[in-house]
């Protein structure tokens, strides 16, 4: 009898050991077929000439990553390819929200962002709500980084650092140097910030702001501003035009024969449409950028060759900054070793890596610290590097710099 019970107990133990206990243990997590990454970009609307550069960069970069088998994920001990879902927000904040919610439900581990205030200011807040990283070239705005949003990372430069750069660049030129400044201020956040630093910088470096005028996004007639700056004798023109406005302003300046010695604009001249829209009229316009296709930093050869092959030309300035965002994300996912949004956020925060656009590491607010900034000047359809900031000193050998040229009068061009 006792033996019989022992046999029954032993049999029960075996059944438990074989069937029940393993089913109670957590199952080994199955590796997903792809790592899902979204990119909500302004592919139509006023910011399209900037965001399409980011789209091209992401596609080129992830093709390269996937050609190498994908990203190694320690949790699954294997490489997993990246699947990128590109969504158009039509340069409209509401659409940014809609598309980020689509990306959220799709299961993206992170979102690679676009460029432009709307996409940045609105999109990063949605990313915070959904606890999904927003990483991208973003905009130069400083304020969005002061809101405690810790899922936002920008590989772009920020207004406190790029705005005073123009004065350093002018001061690096031999005398006689232009001193009288005009500011055309678009009614957008990052321009408002830039104006503050332009004003402070002018005061500090001995420049005189002789003309300052605000205008609304979407303005088409700039003649009153141009004649105002001309009458005030402004030799340096600072501005932050949106992509469609830049070419219109230049054409109207030519019509009104306004001849500043330096046009230093953020944003519009780095749009892919600026050079083709203006042809030789684009010459001498300067723009601060976070990347140039002339940079001889590791990885740029491949990027330039692939961009040339796919799009028939070298990449415009946002391309490299977006490509760098892709590099930062892949580096972080690899280091995280798991496909968890929070873990990826935490590893991005600790990023310190070399990219095609130089070294990237982030402040606790998510902006890139000691970011390499170059100033490009348009000449004969090319954008030449004419100046770089302090961070550029580390890449001196990699930056083919030429001399800045003052803009000659329209009549002699």
């Amino acid at each position, binding site marked *: 009898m006792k033996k019989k019970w022992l046999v029954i107990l032993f049999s029960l133990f075996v059944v438990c050991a074989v069937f029940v206990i393993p089913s109670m243990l957590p199952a080994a997590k199955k590796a997903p077929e792809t790592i899902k990454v979204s990119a909500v970009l302004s*592919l*139509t609307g006023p910011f*399209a000439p900037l965001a399409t550069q980011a789209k091209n960069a992401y596609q080129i970069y992830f093709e390269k990553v996937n050609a190498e088998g994908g990203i190694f994920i320690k949790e699954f001990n294997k490489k997993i390819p990246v699947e990128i879902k*590109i*969504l*158009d927000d*039509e340069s*409209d*904040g*509401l*659409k940014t*929200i*809609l*598309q980020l*919610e*689509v990306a*959220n*439900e799709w299961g993206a581990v992170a979102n690679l962002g676009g460029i432009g*205030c*709307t996409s940045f*200011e*609105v999109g990063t*807040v*949605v990313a*915070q*709500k*959904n606890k999904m990283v927003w990483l991208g070239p973003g905009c130069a705005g400083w*304020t*969005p980084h002061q*809101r*405690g*949003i810790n899922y936002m990372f920008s590989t772009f430069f920020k207004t406190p650092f790029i705005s005073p750069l123009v004065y350093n660049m002018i001061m690096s030129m031999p005398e006689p140097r232009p001193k009288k400044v005009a500011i055309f201020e678009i*009614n*957008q*956040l990052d*321009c*408002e910030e830039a104006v503050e630093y332009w004003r402070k910088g002018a005061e500090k470096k001995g420049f005189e702001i002789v003309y300052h005028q*605000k205008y*609304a*996004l979407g303005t088409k007639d700039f003649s009153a501003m141009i004649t105002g700056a001309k009458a005030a004798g402004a030799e340096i023109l600072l501005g932050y035009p949106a992509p469609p406005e830049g070419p219109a302003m230049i054409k109207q300046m030519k019509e009104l024969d306004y001849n500043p010695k330096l046009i230093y604009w953020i944003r519009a001249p780095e749009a892919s449409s600026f050079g083709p829209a203006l042809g030789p009229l684009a010459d001498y316009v300067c723009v601060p950028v976070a990347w140039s296709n002339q940079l001889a930093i590791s990885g740029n050869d491949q990027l330039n060759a692939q961009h040339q092959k796919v799009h028939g030309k070298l990449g415009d300035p946002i391309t490299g900054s977006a490509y760098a965002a892709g590099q930062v994300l892949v580096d972080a996912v690899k280091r995280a070793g798991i496909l968890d949004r929070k873990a990826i956020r935490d590893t991005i925060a600790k990023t310190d890596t070399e990219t095609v656009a130089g070294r990237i590491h982030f402040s606790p607010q998510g902006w890139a610290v000691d970011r390499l900034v170059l100033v490009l000047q348009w000449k004969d359809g090319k954008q030449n590097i004419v100046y770089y900031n302090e961070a550029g000193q580390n890449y001196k050998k990699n930056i083919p710099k030429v001399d800045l040229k003052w803009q000659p009068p329209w009549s002699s061009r």
Partner: protein
Amino acid sequence: MPKNWKSFFIFGGIIALLAMLPLFTNRSDVLTWSCLTLQYILLSQSWNIIGGYAGQVNLGHAAFFGLGALTTRYLWLAGLPFPASLLSGAFIATVFALLIGIPAFRLRGIYFVIGTLVLAEILKVVIDTRFPVASVLPVETLLTYSLLPRYYLSLMGAVLSVIAVYFISRSRLGLGMMAIREDEDAARTSGVNILQNKLIAFAISTFLAGLAGGIFAFYMVAIQPGYVFSPIWTFDSVVIVFVGGIGTLIGPIIGSVFFVLLKQWLSLHLPGGLHLAVFGVLFILVVLYMPDGFIEAIRRYGKMVTLGRKPMVQGG
């Protein structure tokens, strides 16, 4: 009367189904599209009252939406309870409408259209210039952000607007508005108080537009202040009302569903900006072949079905 009861049951059934939607799905994209569709129903119904029933083509509707949105947003974030903020937003929009309504209704036809359009543009430029920084929900609020209350509030707003339009269309006020729409001089001769009717229509319309703005402000995690004054709010409403069926109760509902969901579906499935082109072509086709909107097409289809059945019955 039985026909009315049938309509009430269908309407009630749809509301009950919509109220149960969050029980079937908690997908944030589906709830987001639903919120937006319901908010568009409210906004387009509000335009339908002044444009569709009273015949006053107000192209400055965004101004009232924007005033409602900004007032609600800033009061709410300043600590006022949300319901009070929402009503304040709608109230401010209405007061502003009455202030400008008296001089604006001295204008007729195209002058009224241009006048209202200019008004909204002025407000947009001023707000854009004075307030370039986005209003963002504090990080602590984001932690507890939920789409559910936004969804139910949007549903309540949409239902309220449909009920309002239903009662207006069957009231003496509604008849007066429609008389003005058809022939202002004839309406005056028939004893309709033109200015009073227009002002009441404008007040109701802008109150609902302000309410739509307030709900939108509650829903958005971040808003650029100038954005809520953007002319797209006016033109979207106009497009929705025309596509659905102007001066009808159901038209703006059908138009909103078509506008939001189809546009979103196209943007997810057509690459490279093609979705905008296709949507534009579809809109042109609707205007060309259904000039009175979907509602007219549905009526025509209903008639065809009825006529098609009769001979069969007779023959049988």
